[in-house]
């Protein structure tokens, strides 16, 4: 009887998860896959075909955008890690008590407002008639208005800023669990700052680094707003191309094919990172 009850409880608990995954993720994806595998012949007539994948893989423009998005997302992840690591280390190890909480809050506060507002903030700062441009002229470093928007570098700043928090939080959590005495022991045994960092701190922080990197990479790869608003006329982000195909061109078939390419790309890169660092998904996430 009790076994019976616990089974019912198990299925009851499982239902929301199954519904969530099934209705919102698996079924739409199957539908997308089917859409991506058909070709429009004429009004309302479709035939199964691989032509959209072929087009996506042979048209140089689509391929270029695909790789550009991948490489820039990896770069954004690396820069985020480089900036976030010292910040997280300071918050977790050097700062104590109140200061620690205040610093952590300071990281969190920008995320109280929506991404759109934050991106507009950057636009107000960096535009030709914006704050930074006027400041540079006032100081005398520039003799006419400087345009800082609409470049790849600006876009990179936006991407790093947007995803900073998602790197800092897992890093702080893992670094906090590192016992100070282990670091002291490292120094006592004659280690230099660099070797302590390499032999003790980074290996301990590895789960945080990997999970932070995965989240930041996925966020950058799937970001739509930042590249569109800050990137300007040369920036074509892969998500923007998906939006264009679905909404502007009404070409759902190609858009769906792009969507699957993006899904495969992110899966492959995440799998590759896990393999490279010798971790399993279970260790990293759990």
């Amino acid at each position, binding site marked *: 009887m009790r076994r019976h009850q616990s089974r019912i409880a198990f299925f009851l608990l499982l239902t929301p998860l199954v519904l969530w995954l099934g209705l919102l993720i698996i079924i739409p994806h199957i539908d997308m896959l089917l859409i991506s595998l058909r070709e429009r012949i004429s*009004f*309302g007539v479709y035939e199964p075909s691989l032509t959209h994948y072929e087009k996506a893989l042979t048209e140089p*423009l*689509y391929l*270029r*955008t695909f790789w550009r998005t991948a490489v820039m997302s990896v770069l954004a992840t690396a820069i985020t890690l480089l900036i976030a690591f010292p910040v997280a280390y300071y918050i977790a190890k050097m700062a104590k008590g109140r200061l620690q909480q205040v610093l952590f809050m300071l990281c969190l506060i920008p995320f109280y407002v929506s991404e759109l507002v934050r991106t507009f903030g950057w636009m107000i700062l960096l*535009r*030709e*008639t914006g704050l930074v441009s006027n400041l540079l002229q006032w100081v005398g470093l520039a003799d006419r208005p400087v*345009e800082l*928007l*609409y470049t790849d570098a600006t876009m990179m700043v936006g991407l790093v800023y947007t995803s900073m928090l998602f790197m800092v939080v897992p890093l702080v959590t893992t670094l906090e669990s590192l016992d100070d005495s282990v670091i002291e022991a490292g120094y006592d045994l004659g280690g230099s700052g660099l070797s302590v960092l390499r032999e003790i701190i980074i290996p301990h922080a590895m789960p945080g680094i990997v999970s932070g990197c995965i989240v930041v990479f996925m966020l950058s790869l799937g970001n739509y707003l930042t590249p*569109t608003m800050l990137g*300007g*006329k*040369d920036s*074509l982000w892969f998500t923007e*191309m998906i939006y*264009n*195909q*679905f*909404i*502007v*061109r*009404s*070409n759902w078939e190609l858009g769906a094919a792009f969507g699957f390419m993006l899904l495969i790309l992110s899966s492959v890169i995440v799998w590759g990172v896990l393999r490279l660092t010798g971790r399993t998904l279970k260790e990293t996430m759990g």
Partner: protein
Amino acid sequence: MTRTILLASTVLAGLASFAQADTLRLLTWGGYAPDDVVAMFEEQTGHTVEVTKSNNEEMIAKLRATGGGGFDLAQPSQDRVMGPQMEFGIYKPMDVSKLNQDLFIPSMLKATMANTTVNGDVYGVPHVWGTSGLVINTAEAGDVVKDYTDLCDPAVAGKVSYRLKRPTLIGFAFAMGEDPFAAYDDEAKYKAIMDKVEAKLIECKPNVKTYWSGGDELMNLVRSGEVTASMAWDTGGWKLNNDNPDITFVAPASGALGWIDTFVLPAKGQADDVAYQWINFVMQPEIAAKITAAAGNFTASAGADEFAEAGLKAQYQASFPQEAIDNIKWYPPVPAGLEAIEGEVLDRVQAAN
């Protein structure tokens, strides 16, 4: 006794009007259903109106995703009715006899109905019309920019903005001496024209500050002086003109591009009668004038001009001398397949260095 009957009849009447009160889910553009007009309609008819603001592409994508459901009345441009209807069947035929046709400007009603007829059924009637052309700071770029292709002039380098969308392609094609509308039925010829436009747009790219995507974004760029010449709608130019008399809308030498936004019934709309009531309501001259004031564009309502604001009329007359009106190129219905060609051109322009 009489009191009881009175009370009962009042209650019954109340119930009856309650049963008839419907919700009109309206898919439209910003400014086409101003709050005061919605309030007046709700008060007169007892129906409620839910307004969703959108643009051509999103309207069609939304209706396509639901097979024409979710809305009771939509307002795509007249060139976007025939193609999507043939392709996806997202609209339902309109019973024009339920409309008060005297409220419409006859020529515009006739043209729109002809352009939105599929298999003998009429799918759309006109509502708001306007043009796109050049919005220019005349003090700085007025002497240089007279036509779309002048946006590529070195004198305005870095001070130019336009959209990467089909109006830009069409406008440039006209300015380069081609007639893209005449080539609508000839895919090979249309592609040749678009290839020429693509080469021009890529050559022109260093001149462009950024490709704008939202009206407000462009307004900020022009108002702050960062952009002195751009491709935009007439209303955008006139709005800016109110703040800065130097900035205004100019009809390009090769002709402004004219569009008409329509009323169509989505295929799975559930309140057709309310939709017809709404159309008849907003086409009344006084109401149409209110919409003109909110949207900045004139409507297909006959006689609404009398009620329009004097300032807007003056701006319109300054931008459109008679020969410029005669030179407006009205969009014909887009045949299927052309947008794929245009899409590839636009992608290549955006990715070009």
